[in-house]
Structure formats: structure tokens, C-alpha cells
């Protein structure tokens, strides 16, 4: 492997890890607080990507500046959070918090099936490609390798900002502390006057918006086609499970590990590239069943 290829693989891996982390952050946040694994998270990611393409395509057609693609990504993420995340929690998940885990999984799986068809109905099966945002930022040359600013600087910066922002938000703001209190003990939190329903709704909207943001940020770097949601939910679950469900900082590290593993495999053994994330997950989980950073929970008898 030449140094150039090495750097390329490294940059690919970092850019990819940043995207996966943003999606996985939403997944692990929702799980950490609500104890629900949202399988529909992958669809929210895909819909975020589709929405961005449609919005920025519309903006370009109106003759607006390409740089507007960036605020439009945020808009799509917020729309996904509010218009999809909100109703899903409010109408469905709220009814099943006291049901067995299997039923909760089935409900989010059903939502996933529905949303996959919604995408197909709204956007068709034709692949979309919309790289305005990618081109708007131009390229940068690092150690003789030319790479896009968008992937090499913007994506990792956004991921890092979200990681630090989430830490700060959960530990140093009132709403964040309310969320942590509800996570710790829902009944105790309710007994001191915290509205747990509101906390759950808010958490789910934020988590869904993160999935949408991941999709929005991914949209300039990849072609958008049906099935991308299914790949992403399995991949982000692999990241979250490798880290330990609910572990935010751990998810960042595992996203990096899995992203790099995958991008190096692309150059070394391309056929196996899609298998690498799962191989890493299986290897970690066979040694530490609760994930790298998860602590084994005390058993209730």
C-alpha cells in the first residue's frame, strides 16, 4: 500500500466515520433515555437525505446561491425530527413503553417498513445525486493528496461539535439534566415533578433530527437510492452495540474504528468491505458482550 493510498483510505475512513457517528448518536441517545431501539432510525436517515436533495434542488432552480445548501440541510434535519419523529413518539411509542421489548422492536420495525414505502412513493426508485454542497467548498491538498474540504474538514468538525455539544447539553443545561434524571429513574423523576412524557418526546425528536442530519450531510457524498436506510440502521446499530448501548463517547470511538476498518478494506480487499464493520462488532462482542464501554447491568431477581 503506497503512502498516497494510505492517506486516501485514512481520509475516507474519517469522513465515513463522522457520518455514521452522527446517525449512531441519535440511535444511542434514544436508546439510552427511552430503552427503545428505533429500527426506523435508518429510514429517518434516508428521508433526511432525500429531503435535502429535494430542497436544495428546488433552491438551485430558484437561482439561489449554492452555499444555501448548508442551512437547507439543517432545515431538513429539523423537519425530519418534528414531522416524523414527533408523531412517531407521540402516537405510537407512547403506547408501548410498558410492553415487552420484543413488541417494542416489532413496532419500530413496522414503522420502518411503512417509511421505506413512503420514500419510494414520494421519491421513486431512481437514484439521486446532488453534490452542490460538496463542490461549493472546494478541495484541499494534504501531504500531496487532494481531498474535498466538505468530507475532510466539515464532516469531522460537525461530528466533533455534536459530540462535545451533546456532552455539554446533557451535563450542564437544565433540559439535559432533566433528561439524565429521567434516564436514571423515571418514577423518581416524575415524583419530583419532571414531565417524563415531554422529556421522551423531546429526546425522540432530537434523536430523529440527528438521523435526518446524518442523511442530509451524507447526501452530497453518495447517490441516494432505496435501501440506504436498511444498510444504515444495521451499520449504526453495529457501531452502537460495539460501543455499548447508550454510550455516546464510546460510539464516537467505535464509529472511527469501524469507518477506518471499512475504508482500508476497500483498498485492500474490496469484496469484503461491507463485512468488516460486522466482523469488528462480532469480535468485540465475543470478548465483551456488553460492548467496549458498556457496563454489565445488575440482574434483578
Amino acid at each position, binding site marked *: 500500500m503506497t503512502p498516497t493510498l494510505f492517506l486516501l483510505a485514512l481520509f475516507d475512513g474519517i469522513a465515513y466515520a463522522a457520518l455514521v457517528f452522527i446517525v449512531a448518536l441519535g440511535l444511542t441517545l434514544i436508546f439510552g433515555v427511552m430503552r427503545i*431501539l428505533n*429500527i426506523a432510525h435508518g429510514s429517518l436517515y434516508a428521508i433526511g437525505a432525500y429531503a435535502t436533495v429535494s430542497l436544495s434542488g428546488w433552491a438551485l432552480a430558484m437561482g439561489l446561491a449554492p452555499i444555501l445548501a448548508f442551512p437547507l440541510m439543517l432545515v431538513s434535519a429539523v423537519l425530519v425530527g418534528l414531522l416524523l419523529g414527533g408523531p412517531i413518539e407521540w402516537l*405510537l411509542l407512547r*403506547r*408501548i*413503553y*410498558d410492553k*415487552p*421489548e*420484543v*413488541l417494542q*422492536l*416489532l*413496532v419500530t*420495525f*413496522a*414503522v*420502518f*417498513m*411503512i417509511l*421505506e*414505502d*413512503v420514500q*419510494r*412513493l414520494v421519491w421513486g426508485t431512481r437514484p439521486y445525486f446532488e453534490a452542490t454542497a460538496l463542490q461549493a467548498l472546494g478541495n484541499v491538498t494534504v501531504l500531496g493528496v487532494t481531498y474535498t474540504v466538505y468530507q475532510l474538514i466539515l464532516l469531522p468538525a460537525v461530528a466533533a461539535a455534536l459530540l462535545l455539544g451533546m456532552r455539554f447539553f446533557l451535563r450542564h443545561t437544565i433540559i439535559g439534566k432533566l433528561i439524565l434524571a429521567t434516564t436514571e429513574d*423515571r*418514577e423518581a423523576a416524575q415524583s419530583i415533578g419532571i414531565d417524563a412524557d415531554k422529556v421522551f418526546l423531546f429526546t425522540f425528536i432530537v434523536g430523529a433530527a440527528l438521523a435526518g442530519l446524518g442523511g442530509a450531510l451524507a447526501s452530497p457524498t453518495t447517490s441516494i437510492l432505496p435501501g440506504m436506510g*436498511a*444498510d444504515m440502521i*444495521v451499520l449504526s*446499530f*453495529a457501531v452502537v*452495540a460495539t460501543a455499548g*448501548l447508550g454510550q455516546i463517547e464510546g460510539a464516537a470511538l467505535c464509529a472511527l474504528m469501524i469507518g477506518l476498518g471499512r475504508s482500508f478494506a476497500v483498498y485492500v480487499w474490496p*469484496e*469484503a468491505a*461491507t*463485512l468488516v464493520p*460486522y466482523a469488528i*462488532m*462480532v469480535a468485540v*462482542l*465475543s470478548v465483551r*458482550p456488553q460492548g467496549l464501554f458498556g457496563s454489565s447491568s445488575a*440482574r434483578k*431477581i
Partner: protein
Amino acid sequence: MTHATEPDKSRQGRPAGGPSMAGTVLPLAGLALLALVPLGAPGMQLLVNLALAKGLAVAGVSVLLRAGQVSFGHALYFAVAAYAGAFLMTALPGADLALVLLAGLLGAVVAGVCVGLFVVRYRGIFFGMLNLAFSMIFWSFLEKFYHITGGADGIRLPRPAVLGMDLDRASFELVLFYLTLTLVLGLGWATIRWLASPAGQIFQTLKTNETRLEYLGVSPRRALLWGYLVSAALCGIGGALMGVTQGVVTPEYAWWIRSGEMVFIAVLGGAGSVRGAFVGALIYELVRTYASAYAGDVWQMLLGGFLLVIILFAPRGVIGMIETLAHRGEARK
């Protein structure tokens, strides 16, 4: 307090002895009716055959639901078995049908041991998602390793011989139909017996109280592994039958939509009911055949919506409704 799981009342207090209306008579009558399909409605024969093959796989998923576990990746065993059959037919042209099914079963069980040893350490979310991950791994193997698996086009599975005879298409399909029906009867009965046996009862205790199992000195992982193998074997036979019936196997066999479909049918028929798996599969295939012409674009959406309705409003599925009706009928006598 809010998170306490209710004991599953529907599974308790089933009469132990004596044929019950819903338990024995109705399924046998249904099977007898199905046996008449090639004579009375030859147009439906292939459809019923495919539905029953799928029903065997769904029964595998149902077995796991009995232990309170859901697998979103059981299409893996379906596909492994179908590909094992196809590889066998490529290596030994003109091999016997029984051999193809055995190869499928063997493939599924071996895969079940490998994956099972890993996934039985987990419950709930991890169990479901790890199964999904393994099926996705196998799917991308089938897609990417073109020179071995034929890629997205899959492999042709030529018609096997039956007891050394090369049959023409019509009589082969007839043999296959009655073989499938026999397997449904035999394996369905065996699975129900296994669930009622001490080993099966221990397996189902995983759902209600796993800790108590450990107090009894029973290894929950081993109990789950046995159940997992039973379910993998059922899926495998279903997959091998499906492959032989369709004559071609493709990576789509392992695709997550297949797994999701199996879970859907299992819940539709009645979560955890073996008989329900077959009833569900028949209803599902019939509706799909006639409805997909009108609703092909929104098919998954309909499934998802229906799944939500069943989970929220009729958690015991179709078989639960039938049982309720049958009990009402018996009470009236």
C-alpha cells in the same frame, strides 16, 4: 413497576389431553382440504406450495417467539439451505430430492450452530439485531462473491430426481406438493410435541423467568441454543423446499425484507403459535398474490400498518381469534 412483563396468559391452561376443536380437529381438516387443492383448484397448487414452504420457515420464527425472542435475520437459514441445495445440484446433477432437502437441512443446522453459539448470549434487542446483522453479512457475501454465488442473478436449481426417477414438470410439482404437505404435518406436529416436552417447556421459560431456570441448574444458553437449532432447521427445510419449487435461488432469499416478512407472518398468525404460522402464511400469500396487482407500491406500507394494528389491538393474531371462536362454540354445546 411499569416495566413488569405480564405473564402470557394465553399459553397457560391449555388442556393437556384429549383432542381439542381448535388444536387438532381444525388443523387436520385444513390439511385435508389443502390436499384436495391439486384436484379441485390446480391453479392454486403452486401458490399453496410456496405458502406452506414459507410457513415452515415462519414456524421456525414462531418457535423463537415462544421464548420471547424475535429474530430479524432468519432469512439467513432460509437462504443458506436454498443455496446448499443449489450447490449440491450443481456438483451432482440429477441428485435426489431427498438429498437436496438433507443438504439444505444440514446447511441450516451448521449455520445455526455457528451463529447460535454467538447469539444465544443475548436477549431482546441484541438477539434480534445480531441476527439481522448476520443475515446482512450473508446477503452481501451472496451479492459480492460473484464467482462463487452467481451474484445478484443467483444460481439455477435444476429439477432433482425423485427416488431415482426423472419426472416431468407436472408430476414433479405434484410430488413436491404432497411432500411439502406431509412435511408440514410431520414437522408441525413434531414441533408442537417438542414445545410441550420438558426440553421445550424449559426453552419457553426463557420468556417468563430465566433466573429461575438457573436456580434449577439448567443452562439458559443451552436451552436457547436447542430452540435456535430447531428454528434454524425449520427455516432451512422451508428454504430448501422454496428453492426446489422456484428452480432458482437468489440473494433476495437472505434479504432483510424476507426476514421481516417471516416475523410479520408469525405475528399475523399468532405470535408463537406453530399452527398459526401456517395459517398466517396461507393468508399472507393469498392476499399478496391478489392484492399486489393493486397495491404493489405500497405493499410494505400495508404490512407495516397491519403489523401495528395486530400488535396494538389483536396481540394473539389470527389463531387467537380462531381459538376464541372455537372455545365459544364449545362452550355453547
